[in-house]
């Protein structure tokens, strides 16, 4: 029982990380039709600069941890905004070129990060409580899982409130459904594009800092490794669906954890198998409307 609980909560923690990356990917694709392969770079840069700020402050304090998350969010949002304005916008509606430019940016930034910070993992230090465990029904749960889950829930709640209660949220929801018709109502949907990139980048930046604490290190490849699963989550959840991304994040991560433990380390294989099944049975994903 304690093993199941441990796997379940660890899966939820990993799912929270997937969600932080996938939420932006899903909204960006849903609204703009852009498959953003550079999204992992937003995450990695957020993680590195979060760590850079943290190591200049008091190591291991909650304040430092909080500031590094804030830095990750700001860095992610800024880089994502610049990417949209400088690289994506000039290629508006040229989806193949947009994919190519994001792939190129992803490769170039990994090389850049390796040049600046080296190829070896850099170990991060967080508040001591994060490294402790909490006993729940006999299962010793690492505390960082709770922080990941809480962060993802806060981001999810914030995004839902933003999408439901604000004018831009309304534009984004309508744009995901029919972008051309939004412009035909006199709305400049391109501003929403930039905003969605910024929001996605901020979530990825937060995810980057939290991922560095989850894995215990930051490296130039941390974004790319999470991006693969975030893409799978995005497709399984349904392109453009935030709720779908949240559900799929949990399903994928929990499946991964259980398969790794009970089925001889086949977690990644099972996730890909699940993707194949979803694509065959419901190509639009769990809650998506676009195949």
């Amino acid at each position: 029982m304690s093993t199941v609980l441990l796997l379940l909560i660890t899966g939820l923690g990993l799912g929270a990380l997937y969600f932080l990356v996938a939420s932006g990917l899903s909204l960006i694709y849903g609204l703009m039709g852009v498959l953003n392969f550079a999204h992992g770079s937003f995450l990695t840069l957020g993680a590195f600069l979060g760590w850079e700020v943290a190591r200049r402050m008091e190591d291991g304090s909650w304040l430092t941890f909080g500031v590094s998350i804030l830095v990750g969010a700001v860095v992610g949002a800024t880089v994502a905004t610049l990417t949209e304005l400088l690289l994506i916008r000039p290629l508006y509606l040229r989806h193949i070129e947009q994919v190519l430019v994001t792939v190129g940016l992803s490769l170039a930034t990994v090389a850049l990060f390796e040049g600046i910070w080296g190829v070896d993992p850099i170990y991060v230090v967080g508040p001591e409580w994060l490294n402790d465990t909490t006993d729940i029904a006999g299962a010793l749960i690492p505390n960082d899982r709770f922080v990941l889950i809480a962060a993802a829930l806060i981001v999810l709640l914030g995004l839902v409130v933003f999408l439901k209660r604000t004018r831009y949220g309304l534009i984004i929801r309508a744009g995901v459904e029919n972008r051309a018709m939004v412009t035909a109502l006199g709305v400049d949907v391109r501003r929403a594009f930039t905003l969605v990139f910024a929001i996605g980048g901020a979530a990825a930046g937060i995810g980057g800092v939290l991922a560095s604490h989850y894995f215990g290190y930051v490296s130039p490849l941390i974004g790319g490794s999470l991006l693969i699963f975030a893409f799978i989550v995005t497709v399984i959840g349904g392109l453009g669906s935030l709720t779908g991304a949240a559900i799929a994040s949990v399903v994928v991560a929990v499946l991964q954890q259980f398969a790794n433990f009970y089925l001889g380390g086949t977690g990644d294989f099972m996730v890909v198998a699940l993707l194949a099944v979803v694509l065959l049975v419901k190509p639009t994903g769990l809650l998506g409307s676009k195949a």
Partner: protein
Amino acid sequence: MIADPILRVEALSASIDGQQVVEKVDFEVPATGVTAVLGRNGVGKTSTLKAVLGLISRSGVVEFDGVRIDGERTHRVVQRGIGYVPEDREVFASLTVAENLRLAARGGAPHRDMVDELFPDLVARTAQRAGSLSGGQQQMLSLARVLMNDNRLLLVDEPTKGLAPRIVTEVAAALERAAAVTPVLLVEQNLPVVRRLAHTVVVIEGGRVIHAGPAAELLDDDERTQQLLGVHSTDHSAPRGDTDHSAPRGDTDHSAPRGADNTREETS
């Protein structure tokens, strides 16, 4: 030549995915009344409206109230005061009626009261998702999004398509009221509606304008109408295939007799 037209289109061409759908079209829309764009299926009527708005790739001159707008992006064109009611309504199905209206509101939606008066059915359904409305209610919502704003020209694409006769009458009445103050460029297959609303007609064939003139002059000439449009101007029946099978029962005219089958345009 019309004195001070609200819209002037000259050598307008448009393409979709590299395929030419409108070819060097010229016409003008007077600053008052309804101008109907007519033609057989797939001749480029819908594409012409979309090209005016910049929703599809275009070339040529589009002048709105004396100002060239062919280089402007769609939202700018609309903000100049051109309202667009698309074919097939294109309401945002996942949004509520109120959200659809809120999204479309410009400049405080000065004519919201008139819209509420015209479409009381919508007022009672503000919290309902647009996707769950009947076909007729969706058409009312599509019209309401445009009529509540201060526009100087309306582009209306097949507003009566697939609607029951009672709803057609309501939609025509709403357009008639709107046209009293705002010029309308109307794509419409329902000739009785054209006869009721339009002052001028432009007939398109193969992406080109082949006839332009007073509506009554064409529609009173049954032989000419048959020649240009493939239907009799006296045929008041709903065209075959004009039934919107996606519309919930009750708004769809299942009793409509099957008439000419060549008055339905494919979406361009």
